[in-house]
């Protein structure tokens, strides 16, 4: 790299800026989802996730204690207490308050509002209040007070409890999570096994038609899978597989194979010829060379393709909709579950954000755990 230092500056800046942009593009929505999934519906409605770490102003409607709590002090009937404690709200600072919904910030903390027959109320900054009247309070509920309060940041695990553990039929992601795993793991393993064998044959075994086969694989890379959806489904229904896990595994395998064979073959063909010839001299059969030499040495490429296939089957909606999910909905996957949540809980952003984050958590873990294989496999064959 240092040998091309002369051409560095301009291009390097362009690269650095694009990388920074890409990172930002990737990080912001992810962090946003993550943060939002820990907030309550009220907080999400009041402010964006980026403000969640700071105290925020919120308009609350609180009630004083009900008249049964009144006490008599000389001539006066008094109700006193703390607004937040009485209403089971976290402590907060009041910046303004009012006694009517038309004027919710008429008074400063410490001032006294005269409500005529209803008495006089004084509210301190920390929510302590004192309500006085010359006659006894009546009725069953306390006075409504409108406060503009600065509440401290607050995070909760309730959303996750609701989405994962509650067992609610409409909101639960737990079942969909395991369904997705059931689809994804075989749909990753099966094509890799098949492709590894095929790639070895295409890279190291001599047989007539090999070049044509390789060309066919490359040609298949560019065929859009939508082309095959209907014929394949008809085939599945025709031969009795129907809609189900077997069908979706086969479909993912078929759609994944061209890229798998292509990537793995390119990697294997770059393994040193001498090593394979030496194994032949040592008496290894093609199968032994494959299992004992080529397969262990191809681990980076296998891992790299495994990541690709895993991520793409995990995030897949189309193939699952066509080949898996039937009318009962028993086999729904997470992508489909989120689509349904958008319909049933469209306004509940805290549920949606949590569900979305549950569905991207596993890909994130996979990506961070295996990223070096991702890069190494992508570079396969391009550098010596």
């Amino acid at each position, binding site marked *: 790299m240092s040998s091309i230092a002369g051409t560095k500056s301009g291009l390097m800046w362009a690269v650095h800026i694009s990388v920074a942009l890409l990172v930002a593009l990737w990080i912001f929505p992810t962090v946003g989802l993550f943060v939002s999934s820990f907030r309550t519906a009220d907080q999400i409605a009041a402010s964006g996730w980026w403000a969640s770490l700071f105290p925020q102003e919120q308009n609350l409607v609180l009630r004083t204690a009900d008249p049964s709590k009144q006490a008599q002090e000389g001539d006066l009937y008094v109700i006193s207490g703390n607004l937040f404690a009485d209403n089971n709200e976290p402590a907060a600072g009041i910046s303004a308050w009012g006694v009517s919904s038309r004027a919710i910030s008429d008074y400063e903390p410490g001032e006294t509002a005269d409500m005529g027959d209803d008495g006089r109320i004084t509210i301190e900054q920390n929510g302590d209040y004192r309500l006085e009247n010359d006659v006894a309070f009546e009725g069953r509920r306390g006075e409504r007070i409108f406060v503009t309060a600065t509440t401290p940041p607050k995070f909760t695990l309730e959303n996750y409890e609701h989405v994962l553990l509650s067992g609610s039929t409409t909101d639960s992601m737990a079942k969909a999570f395991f369904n997705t795993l059931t689809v994804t793991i075989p749909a990753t393993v099966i094509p890799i096994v098949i492709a590894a064998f095929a790639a070895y044959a295409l890279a190291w075994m001599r047989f007539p038609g090999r070049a044509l086969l390789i060309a066919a694989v490359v040609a298949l890379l560019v065929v859009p899978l939508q082309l095959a959806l209907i014929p394949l489904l008809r085939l599945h229904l025709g031969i009795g597989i129907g809609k189900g896990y077997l069908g979706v595994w086969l479909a993912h395998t078929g759609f994944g194979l061209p890229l798998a064979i292509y990537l793995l073959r390119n990697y294997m063909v770059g393994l*040193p010829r*001498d*090593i394979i*010839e*030496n*194994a*032949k*001299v*040592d*008496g*290894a059969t093609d199968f*032994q060379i494959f299992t*004992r*030499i080529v397969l*262990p*040495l191809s681990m980076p490429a296998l891992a790299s393709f495994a990541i690709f296939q895993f991520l793409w089957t995990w995030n897949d909606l189309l193939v699952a909709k066509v080949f898996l999910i039937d009318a009962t909905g028993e086999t729904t996957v997470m992508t489909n579950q989120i689509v349904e949540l958008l319909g049933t809980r469209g306004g509940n952003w805290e549920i949606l954000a949590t569900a979305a984050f549950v569905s991207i958590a596993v890909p994130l873990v996979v990506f961070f755990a295996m990223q070096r294989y991702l890069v190494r496999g992508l570079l396969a064959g391009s550098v010596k």
Partner: protein
Amino acid sequence: MATLKLTKVTKAYGNIEILHGIDLDIESGEFIVFVGPSGCGKSTLLRTIAGLEQITSGTLEIDGVVVNDIPPSQRGIAMVFQSYALYPHMTVYDNMAFGMRLARKSRQEIDERVKYAANILQLTPYLDRLPKALSGGQRQRVAIGRAICRNPKVFLFDEPLSNLDAALRVATRIEIAKLHESMPDTTMIYVTHDQVEAMTLADRIVVLRSGVIEQVGSPMELYDRPDNIFVAGFIGSPAMNMVPCTFEQSGGEVRARPENHEPVRIPVQIPAGAVGGKGTLGVRPEHLRLADGAEPLFRGRLDIVEHLGELTLLYVDCGFAEPIIAKLEGNVRIERGSEIALAARTGMLHVFDADGRSFPRQEQPLAAE
């Protein structure tokens, strides 16, 4: 114990023929070295013997059995590759045991043979290491050890020292020579482009050019009696001086007259038909000396002097296309640009006909010079 016999072996890739009918007999226990310039087919020939390349036509026999269609592992050979070709994911021990495990040898036998080979090559402390934790020389020794473990009848070496640095190359070369001594029954075939390796290791050298054997012989035969200009120029460093000459009758004998020079006596018999014709006169740089007598071979102006300490190289412009190179022992002090004369003993001259073949030498020594 293995003899090899190659009969009219050819190898072609599509329409391109790489080997054009190789005939070669190799005795049991011989150390044979294939040399030649890049692309001469020496590696292809070795790989053909190994069975890694199919023979296009002709036959290859090992111990009298035609092995054209026998896979490499059953030919009783072991091969050491230039790149070592170690299995990177296996320890030294596993590398050496791999072939025997495939052959389903007993655990005890495998252990014995690996320990034996490791002992010969001083690899015992490294048996548990991976190849990447070894130096180049150690890797090459593992590759050789792996070959020893196979207990082969024929050892094949494909430029085994090319990836080593100069000092290690000398050391490993000596180790290979010792190895051959310790296994007198094992035939070894060694490919190299380095003539020092060829001269020091070989019982017989096979010089190849463009898929054809130019000459087969012991190192000294090739040095003293090259069959043709190619072999003469290939063996020896710096290369032999070659100058065009004409053959003339002079008194009772035929002499060679280099261009622009006096005719000189030559140690070969020129057939009558060649007299008056053109040829090539060759003399090795180390056989030239400064002429003090009356009959110098070449005269010219000294262009360049290279002092190497143990010897001095003179580049003399004698009016030929190439300067004449003389290799003198010790540190010779001569001014650049001075006119000098060079001479050589008649017996040290090489004479080639117009096609580059050498003439038969005279049997009886020439009269005293």
